[in-house]
C-alpha cells in the first residue's frame, strides 16, 4: 500500500552513498535474546522488542549456492520461490491472502550460505504468522504449475540481471575471482540450469535440507519469549530430526587475477576490482571490515573523498566485503563516464597502492571504526533485520551473539593491522570492466 508519498514512485533523487552491507556492534539498548534448542535439533532465538506493535520472523536453512553443484546452480532459490506457493492446505493465493490479513507478508529466497523464509505481521497476529511460516516450511506441495511460473519469473530475473551494467559486471568478476568454487556462481542460477530443474529434483532437495538440525528460527518483536517457545514446539514438532551428512567440501577458489572487458551499450562505464578475503570465522575478519570502511565507507571514505569529491569522477562508488562462511571477497567499484574510464581505473589502483604502502593515521582508523559500528547499530534497529542477524550468525556456526564479540574485535584493530591486511589481501586484483559502446 502506498502512503501518498511522491518518493514512493521513485522520484526521489538521493545524494547516493553506496553503503557497505556490513556486520558490526551491539547497541546498548537491545533487549536480551532467548535461545532454545528443541529435541529434534531445531534452534529458536527470540528477541522481545517492545518498540513497535510488529513482529518479524526469519527461518534460515543450511541450503544455498555454497552446496550446489554446477549442474544444479539456482536450485535452492527456485525451491524457496515455490515453497511459498502452495501447501497441503493452502493455495498460493491463500498464502498471500493469509499474510495480508495479518498485516504482513511471507516471502522466500535462496542465498549463498543460507536460504530464508521470512515473514512480518502486526504483533497481535504473531501466532498466525508462526503458523503460516510452519505450514510452508513443513508442508509445501510444490505444485507443478507454480514451478513453471516461478521458473519463468527467475529466468526473467536472470535476463534482467544481464541487462543491468553493475550486476552484469559484478557476476563476471565473481566468476573470474572464484573459478570452480560455488561462490563464483550467481544464486539465481543460470538459464541452462534453471530451465532443466524439475519437480523430482526440487522435492529431493527439499527433503535433504529441510531438517530440524539444519534450521534456525529467529523471532523479534512485541512478543513473549516463553509463549513463542511453546507455540514453536507445537507447530514444528513434525519437522524431521537430524541434519544429514555434509556434502564434500567444494573446490578451492582460484582467482584468475585477470582483467576482463565487457563491451555493452550503456551510459556509464563500470570498473570492479576484486580480491579474495577472509571468511566470517577468519582471524582477520574485523580488520578487513575496517579496511573496507576506510576505503569505501560513507562520504569520508578514501574512494569517495579522492575520486568523487576531489576529482568528480563518479556518482556511485564504494567497497563491498560481505560476511561469508567460506573465503569471502573484497570488491571496490565505480561507475563513471566512458571517457573517464582510464583515469578512474588508475585512481582505484592508486588508492589500493596507497593503503598498502602508507600507514594510515590512527585518527582515520578511529573514524572508520566509529562509522562501521555506527552503521551496524543503525541497521540492527528494525525487527526484520534483528531476526535476520540472529539467525544468520547462529546458522553460520559463530553464534547469535557473534556481533558483540565482533564489536570488541573492531575496537582492537590498529593502523598496523590495516597495513598488514591490506598487504596480505589486496595484492593481485581480478578486474572486470564494462566499456560502453555506441547504442
Amino acid at each position, binding site marked *: 500500500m502506498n502512503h501518498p508519498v511522491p518518493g514512493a514512485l521513485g*522520484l526521489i533523487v538521493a545524494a547516493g552513498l553506496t553503503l557497505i552491507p556490513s556486520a558490526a556492534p551491539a547497541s546498548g539498548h537491545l533487549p536480551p535474546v532467548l535461545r532454545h534448542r528443541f529435541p529434534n535439533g531445531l534452534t529458536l532465538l527470540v528477541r522481545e522488542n517492545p518498540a*513497535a506493535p510488529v513482529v518479524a520472523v526469519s527461518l534460515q536453512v543450511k541450503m544455498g549456492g555454497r552446496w550446489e553443484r554446477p549442474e544444479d546452480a539456482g536450485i535452492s532459490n527456485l525451491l524457496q520461490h515455490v515453497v511459498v506457493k502452495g501447501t497441503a492446505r493452502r493455495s498460493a493465493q491463500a498464502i498471500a491472502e493469509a499474510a495480508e490479513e495479518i*498485516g504482513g507478508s511471507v516471502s522466500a529466497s535462496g542465498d549463498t550460505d543460507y536460504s530464508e523464509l521470512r515473514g512480518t505481521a502486526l504483533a497481535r497476529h504473531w501466532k498466525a504468522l508462526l503458523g503460516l511460516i510452519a505450514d510452508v516450511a513443513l508442508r509445501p506441495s510444490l505444485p507443478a504449475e507454480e514451478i513453471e511460473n516461478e521458473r519463468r519469473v527467475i529466468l*526473467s530475473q536472470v535476463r534482467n540481471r544481464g541487462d543491468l551494467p553493475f550486476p552484469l559486471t559484478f557476476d563476471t568478476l565473481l566468476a573470474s575471482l572464484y573459478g570452480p568454487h560455488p561462490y563464483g556462481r550467481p544464486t539465481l542460477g543460470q538459464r541452462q540450469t534453471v530451465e532443466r530443474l524439475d519437480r523430482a529434483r526440487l522435492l529431493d532437495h527439499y527433503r535433504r535440507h529441510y531438517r530440524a538440525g539444519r534450521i534456525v528460527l529467529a523471532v523479534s518483536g512485541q512478543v513473549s519469549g516463553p509463549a513463542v517457545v511453546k507455540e514453536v514446539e507445537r507447530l514444528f514438532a513434525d519437522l524431521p530430526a537430524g541434519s544429514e551428512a555434509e556434502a564434500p567440501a567444494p573446490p578451492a577458489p582460484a582467482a584468475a587475477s585477470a582483467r576482463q572487458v565487457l563491451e555493452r551499450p550503456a551510459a*556509464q562505464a563500470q570498473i570492479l576490482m576484486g580480491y579474495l578475503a577472509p571468511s566470517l570465522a577468519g582471524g582477520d575478519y574485523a580488520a578487513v571490515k575496517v579496511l573496507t570502511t576506510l576505503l569505501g565507507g560513507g562520504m569520508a571514505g578514501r574512494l569517495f573523498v579522492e575520486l568523487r569529491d576531489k576529482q568528480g569522477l563518479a556518482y556511485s562508488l564504494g567497497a563491498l566485503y560481505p560476511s561469508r562462511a567460506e573465503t569471502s571477497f573484497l570488491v571496490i567499484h565505480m561507475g563513471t563516464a566512458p571517457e573517464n574510464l582510464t583515469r578512474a581505473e588508475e585512481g582505484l589502483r592508486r588508492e589500493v597502492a596507497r593503503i598498502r604502502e602508507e600507514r594510515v593515521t590512527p585518527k582515520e582508523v578511529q573514524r572508520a571504526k566509529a562509522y562501521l559500528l555506527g552503521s551496524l547499530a543503525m541497521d540492527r534497529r528494525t525487527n526484520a533485520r534483528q531476526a535476520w542477524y540472529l539467525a544468520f550468525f547462529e546458522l553460520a556456526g559463530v553464534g547469535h551473539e557473534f556481533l558483540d564479540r565482533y564489536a570488541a574485535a573492531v575496537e582492537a584493530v590498529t593502523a598496523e593491522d590495516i597495513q598488514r591486511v591490506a598487504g596480505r589481501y589486496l595484492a593481485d586484483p581480478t578486474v572486470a570492466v564494462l566499456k560502453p559502446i555506441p547504442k
Partner: protein
Amino acid sequence: MPTSGPPSLHRPTRLVLDNGMRVIIQEHRASDVVALHLWVGVGGRDERPAELGFSHLVEHMLFKGTETRGPGFIDREVEAVGGRTNAGTSLDYTFYYILLPARQALRAIEVMADVAVNSAFDPKELERERQVVFEEVRLGEDNPRSSLFRQLYTHVFPGHPYGRPVLGDEAALKAATRETLRGYYRRHYAPENMVLVVIGAVNPADVSAVVERTFARVPAAGYRRQPLPPPPPLPGVRRHVVSRNEKQAHLALGWSAPPLDHPDVFAVDLLASILGGSRSSRLNQALRERGRLVSSIRAGYGALQGGGLVSVSAQLEPGDLGKVEEAILGEIRRIQTEGVTEVERRRAITAAESEHAFAIETAEGLAYAYGLAETVWRLEEELRYLERLRSVTREQIHEAARRYLPVDRYAVLAFTPPGGAR
C-alpha cells in the same frame, strides 16, 4: 513559541518560530539514535527554465562546506561519531537527514542550521559536483525502472512543472555559476520555507533551547511559494515507445490523480492498493499468477501537493506488450463495473496499518513521515491518516475507480528491445 499540544511520547510537539520556521520534536526511545531532518519547500516544480536541476545541485552543494566549516565537516561531525547523512530532492521538496547517536544530537542541530543558511558554494567544489551530478544522470539512464518513472511523469504532466526532470537539464546545469546557484539557495532556503524534525532519545526542552540560538536567529524573509497551476487533463491515450538495449520490456501506464489536499486521496490510495499494491492484488493475481503475462506488476499512487499520479508498471516479454496493456485495462474496467469487495477493502486498510506500524520502528521512519506531511500537506493529516483511511467506504473506492482511471485518457510508456516495438 505557540505549540499545538503538550509534549508526549506518542504525539509530536509542533513549534512555529517567530521567523515562520516550523519545528517538530518527538521523544522516541526505542534506540539511542536520533533522526534529524531538515525539509525545504523547494524542488523541481520551483525551477525556471534556466534553473532546471538547481534544486538538486544545491542539495549536493550543501554537503561541500559552509562559510565556517570546511568541505570535510561531514566526516568530522557526523561519520566520525558513527552517524550518517544523506539527502533527496523531489518535485515538491528537498530534504536532508543526519542520523546519529543521541549524545551528539544537539551539536548536529547546530551543523544543520549552519548548512541551511551559510553554505559556501565554493566555485571549485561546484565544478566537481556538477560532474558528479552528470554521473548520477548517466546512472539513472542505465536503470530501466528509474528511467521509466521519471519519463512517465513527463508524459502525464506535459508542459506542467511536474513534467520537468528533477535531475535537470544539461544546458542549465552547465551554465550554473556560484552566483546563480547561491541566488537560488538564498531565495528558497528561507525560514518560512523550512521544517526541522527531531525524533529520538532527546529531551524536547534541550532541543528547543538549541533551536532558539540557531535556526530562530535567522531573519524572516517574507517568503511565499509560487502556487502551481492545476495539471491539464490528458486529452486521450498518449502512447510513447522507447527502444532500449535491455532484453526485457517495461511498461508503465499513468493517470492524472487528485493532489494531497483532495478529499479523495484516501479512496484513491485504497484503490491503488487493491488494484496492484500487494501479492493478492487484482493485477498481480490476474497477470502474474493466473495469466503468466508479466514477471512483476504493481500499481501505486503518488500524491503531490498540486497533482497526483496513479501508475501501473510491469516487467514483461516484449511480445506481450499489447496483451498486457489490454489485460490491465480489463482489470480496471472490472473494478469500474463491479466495485471492490469488503474483504479487499479491509485487507488494504490492514496493509496501511501495518506499513505505518513498521515505519515507526525507527526514528527516521517517523521523521520522514512528519517532515513530508508538514512540508507538502499538514502534520495533523498525517496523524489522522489511518483513521481517515478506515472511514473510506466500498462505494467511495468504486467511485474513485470510475472517476480517476478513465480507460480512454491515460499515458502509456513502453521500453522495448531494439526491434521489439509493436
